[in-house]
């Protein structure tokens, strides 16, 4: 094979051609599929009805601003729940890792806690705590559904986050602990300086995915009162008897969750690559 005048080898030229060809094929097949969808879908019998029920542009335009402003509640609830979840999750993870016999009740507590809160649907916890606890006779403002609904989310998610942290702690190779021990470091120093910093770093992507799930589950608070995005969409739906506001809500969720999910996927892929 000789280098040609353009500075490209015959192979590179061939590959360029092949690449151009495959781009062309890909474009063509994509266009064909798109055209089929765009032409065929409106030909289905119920299309008009579905379009006006789910994709009514005027309704979307009219309701979108209020949806956006309701979404601020989701964001706010999310923001105050996240640190609490991280903190509580780490605490529970450490409970489950406690080894001294006197701490046995802590370990049992950790196990029960994660079992219960991972085992019951979030929505049930939201109902139980969000409706139930304020019903015990708390006075305003301490009976706010924002407080107790958020607590329900915090309790549930910290159980998942605790398990993630625990997996992180266990994923730190035994020989790291052995190396730290062999230097004469104490148990707590080993956990604090050697194990946790590595564990927490490793579980960042998994925790990002939990954040996405949390962001979506904030919507469940709407069932106990707070007028956040989902409830606002539901109100519009009820008044307009049209489901387009739900589509608007879905768009808002996607705008937040896709980038974060993607970023988490990217981090996980990077980590897997670094590990292999």
């Amino acid at each position, binding site marked *: 094979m000789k280098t040609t005048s353009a500075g490209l080898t015959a192979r590179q030229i061939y590959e360029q051609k092949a690449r151009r060809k495959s781009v062309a094929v890909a474009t063509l097949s994509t266009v064909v599929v798109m055209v089929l969808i765009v032409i065929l879908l409106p030909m289905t019998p119920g299309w008009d009805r579905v379009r006006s029920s789910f994709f009514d542009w005027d309704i979307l335009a009219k309701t979108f601003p209020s949806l956006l402003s309701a979404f601020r509640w989701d964001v706010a609830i999310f923001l105050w729940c996240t640190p609490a979840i991280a903190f509580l999750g780490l605490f529970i993870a450490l409970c489950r890792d406690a080894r001294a016999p006197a701490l046995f009740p802590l370990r049992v507590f950790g196990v029960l806690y994660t079992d219960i809160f991972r085992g019951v649907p979030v929505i049930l916890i939201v109902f139980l705590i969000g*409706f139930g606890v304020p*019903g015990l006779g708390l006075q305003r403002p301490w009976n706010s559904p924002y407080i107790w609904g958020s607590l329900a989310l915090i309790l549930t998610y910290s159980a998942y986050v605790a398990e993630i942290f625990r997996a992180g702690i266990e994923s730190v190779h035994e020989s790291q602990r052995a190396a730290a021990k062999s230097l004469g470091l104490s148990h707590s120093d080993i956990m604090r300086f050697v194990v946790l910093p590595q564990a927490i770093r490793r579980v960042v992507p998994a925790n990002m995915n939990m954040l996405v799930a949390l962001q979506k589950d904030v919507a469940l608070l709407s069932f106990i009162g707070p007028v956040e995005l989902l409830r606002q969409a539901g109100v519009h739906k*009820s008044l307009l008897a049209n489901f387009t506001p739900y589509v608007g809500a879905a768009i808002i969720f996607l705008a937040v969750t896709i980038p974060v999910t993607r970023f988490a996927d990217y981090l996980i892929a990077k980590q897997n690559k670094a590990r292999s």
Partner: protein
Amino acid sequence: DTHCAAGKTLSPDVLTIATGNPAYYPWVMDDDPTSGAGFESAVAYEVAKRMGFEKDAVVWTRATFDQSIQPGAKEFDVNLQQFSITEDREKVVDFSEPYYSAAMAVLVRQPTIDGGATAELASLKDLKWGVMAGTTALETVNSAIAPADTPLLYDDNVNVVEAMKANQIDAALFDLPTALYLSAVVLDDGALLGQFAADRSENPDQFGILMEEGSPLKACVDEALSAMKDDGTLAAIEAEWLQETTGVPLIK
């Protein structure tokens, strides 16, 4: 200040009234309770006035149905949202005297009537029913009609109607004014198949104003309501906002 509610409200000199989110026609017109238009909105302002709160001393808030009938402290002084008075609920919240006795009506779509459904219990048994969960309508369906298929349950009116549009259910039971509204406005081909009269002895459905358990306002509200009944104001409001309902056949 001499009126009986003085000092008993959440915020001084202001009566906080809750309604649903959204609030439905014809109970509240255009989801705007402050207009005084709509049956419950009008009743609320009248009751407030008789308790010593002029129009500008009334503040509206919103609360979901479930949220309102939970035990515990409330975010409102009084709440009108077509709450049926029941014994179980009386244990955890307080209700005023009834301000409306609701007939219960069967909402269907025209094709169901064309399919041969009539206002007779035997015919109703074979329909697929949908009901709002958590309301007393469910008990009425189960005890009075006892349908062959278990009813499907929904969280609000529009979901019931949507299921009806999707042909997932044939019939739904609502209080008559709501049923009239849904059949006339929300459904293209809605119709009322029949009604259980308001003065029925079994499962009577009477709406009360809801207050926190042990609310000191209960006496004032009751006093205002009975005065309204006595002087015919309540009947006048009802006549203004709720349609004549005699056109709907009674269920046999």
